[in-house]
Structures are given as structure tokens and as C-alpha cells.
């Protein structure tokens, strides 16, 4: 539609260059949007694995993955439902560190993130390497709450947040793109908020 909405002026705030198009700052609140019952996952039984097209399939326990070190992401997150949350701090382990151990084969192009609930989401390998993705277990200095994906979630903050799978259980390395849970239901395969890639065809 080329026209504007009669009578609407909007309450724009001073424009914040950190907000992608169509997003607003949710402030202190952190909305919870999930499709399934929040699982109760015991870290004593928790695992994270990498399989598929790798030289060395690996599975880490909670203690083993923590022993690999800790990395921090400071910045913003963007949900496809149009809220963004600015200035967050997440702690976890870089996916680069994990993939360096599993060693993707040369034919690898994508990953499918899998979760303890059965949720899945697909990502190009290039979007989870080069310091762009983490398995995160702390937010703003505290353990990641269950409703936000605790004990650990995938964190891919440069893409819409449905890609940052809650309750993540692993990455399956593939030589093709394979739509995940929301991607099979009309959501975009990549989900770049700066390009407003919300739905298939955007």
C-alpha cells in the first residue's frame, strides 16, 4: 500500500541505529514466545552434540562443554514479532570452538539445530561460524531461565531470534538446506532482521 494510515502519527522515539526496520525497543521486558510446554531439563543429563557431515561426531556433557571455556556476546537481539532487546550480555561457548573439534567436511554448507523438545531450525554454516553464534547458558550474569531456553540455548543474534533455538541439543551438519520447525510453516529460511526476512519470499 502506498498510502498512509489516516490519523496515525506514531510515537517514534529518537531513532536508534541499533533497531532494524520494523522493530521497536522492548525496554526492560523480555517477552517469552514458544510453541511448546517449557521442558524441565536436568544439567546432569543434558548433552550437546554435533553430528552429520563432520570428521568427528562429538557429544558433550554439561561439565565437558563448560570445560572448553567461556565466551561473551554483548549486544542486541531481534524477534520476528517486532520487538528488539538492546544491550544484553550472554555467556556460553562459541560455536567456532565446537566446530573446530567436530571438523565439518568440505561439502558442509548448512546446519540444522536440534532441541530437547523436538524443535528444529536451519542455518547456513556461514551464519554460525566466524564469531557469530554461541551455545549460551548465562544471560546478564545469571543462569539462563528455563522459559528463555535454559539450561542452554543457541544464540545467533544477527538473525531473528527464532533461529536462536531454546533448549538446544545439537547441530546436524548438512550439505544442503533443510527447513526447520517454523521454516516449514512459512517463516524465512535465513531471517536477517536488517533485510526484514520474516516470511518465505521476503
Amino acid at each position, binding site marked *: *500500500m502506498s*498510502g*498512509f*494510515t*489516516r*490519523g*496515525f*502519527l*506514531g*510515537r*517514534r522515539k529518537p531513532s536508534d541505529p541499533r533497531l532494524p526496520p*520494523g522493530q*521497536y525497543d*522492548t525496554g526492560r*521486558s523480555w*517477552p*517469552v*514466545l*514458544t*510453541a*511448546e*510446554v*517449557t*521442558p524441565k531439563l536436568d544439567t546432569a543429563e543434558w548433552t550437546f552434540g554435533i553430528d552429520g557431515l563432520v570428521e568427528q561426531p562429538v557429544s558433550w556433557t554439561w561439565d565437558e562443554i563448560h570445560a572448553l571455556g567461556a565466551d561473551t556476546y554483548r549486544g542486541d537481539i531481534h524477534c520476528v*514479532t*517486532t*520487538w528488539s532487546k538492546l544491550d544484553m550480555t550472554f555467556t556460553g561457548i562459541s560455536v567456532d570452538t565446537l566446530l573446530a573439534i567436530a571438523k565439518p567436511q568440505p561439502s558442509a554448507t548448512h546446519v540444522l539445530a536440534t532441541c530437547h*523438545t*523436538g*524443535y528444529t531450525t536451519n542455518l547456513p554454516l556461514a551464519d554460525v561460524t566466524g564469531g557469530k553464534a554461541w551455545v549460551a547458558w548465562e544471560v546478564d550474569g545469571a543462569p539462563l531461565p528455563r*522459559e528463555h531456553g535454559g539450561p542452554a540455548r543457541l544464540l545467533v543474534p544477527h538473525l531473528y531470534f527464532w533461529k536462536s533455538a531454546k533448549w538446544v541439543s545439537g547441530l546436524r551438519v548438512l550439505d544442503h538446506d533443510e527447513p526447520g*520447525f*517454523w521454516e*516449514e*510453516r*512459512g517463516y524465512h529460511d535465513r531471517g536477517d532482521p536488517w533485510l526484514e526476512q520474516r*516470511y*518465505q*519470499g521476503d
Partner: protein
Amino acid sequence: MIDDAGPEVPAVGPWQAGTVVDIRTETPRVKTLRIALPVAAPHLAGQHFLVRLTAPDGYTAQRSYSVASPPDGTAEIELTIERLTDGEVSGFLHDELVVGDALEVRGPIGGWFVWSGTTPALLVGGGSGVVPLVAMLRLARRTPNQALAHLVVSVRTPEDLIYASEMSGPDVTVIHTRTQPPDGPRPAGRIAVDDLAPFVRPDATTFICGSTGFAEAASNLLVDAGVATPTIRVERFGPTG
């Protein structure tokens, strides 16, 4: 684990300039807009649409609203809007929008929280979380086997009940958490396992919609009542103004 069964999901349509053809006041904080679309965008019960407002200088604000009308083969949809305190979009829709206005919408969206109308369903809603469930209830009431769906809706007071004229009959249970009506069958209080257990059946899909607090409480109660986690589908309402 997520149970993968479900109806075929229609593609998300393009943005369209709809026309507001009716506005109904449901409660002091809730209105329903009936919108005629230039091109029909058939939805499944439970799906939502985006509404986008554009200012003269190009500034836009968009929000998602559940469709309250059942799939009916027309090019019209009904969206129910709760007015949120200081809500930029909901405030505009309540205070400025009039019948005849153009309103830009896009949908249908959401392929998980949907019901085909052919299998048993238990619908559990809190407050304005009842909206997508009412689309399902209305669909159920149009099918030959009206007993397929049962709605349990939780509201604070009788005045907060949306679609009140339709919220009676053997397929609806209304729970009041703060104030019960004079003839109320149960004392006011939070939803409990006894409110849900009579309607649990092993072959049903359960749809829960409400605030995060309500959705968590209701899912825990349903699991306590014997509902299998994979058969529960949840939609949580965030504070989006």
C-alpha cells in the same frame, strides 16, 4: 517432544489494504474489527495477521493479532484487539480507527497453533488469549460434531469476558479468578486441575493461549491431569503494544 501432525498450512499472503467494515466493543478494553480484504487470504483457526500503521512521513508500527473469526470462505476477517496501557498500535486502533478506514494487513501467519476442526481439541485460554481459541470454538460449532472441542476460559471478572454472548453451553467453561458472577458455579480463584480434568481426553490436541504466567500454570496443570506433553500446543502473549 513436538508432535508434528497438523493441517496443511496456507502460504503467508502479501500486504493488503483492507477496509474496516465493522467495529464492535467487546469489553471496556477490547474491541473487534471486521476487515474486508481486496483478495481473500483463507486462514486456519488459530492463525494471526499483522497490522501495519504508516505515518505520513513513512514511519511504521506493526503488531500481530489473532483472527477471531472462523475460516468461512469469505474475504473478511475479524481481529480482536486488547487495549494495552500506552500501546502505540492498540491505542490507535481503539481511539482513532473508524468504520470505512483503510487498514494494512498481512497474513495468515503461524502454522503450529492451528486446528483443522476434524480432531478432538481442548482449548484453554487466559484473558485475551481466548481470541484464537474462539476461532476454533466457532469452527467447532459449525461442524456436524459440535462435541469435538471444549473451551475453558479464565478471566478476572465477568466484565472481562470477551464474546460473552457466546460463552455458554456444554462446550464452554468460564473460570473467574477474582470476582464470580452471582450464579457462579465455583468460587473465584485461579484455574485448578479440577477445572480441566473433566475435559481431558487422550485423543485430543490441547491448545493453550495466554500470558506466559497463565500458559506455564495451565500446562503444568494439564500435565498433572494426565495430558501428554507432545499433544500440547502453546501460544504465549507478550507485552506488545
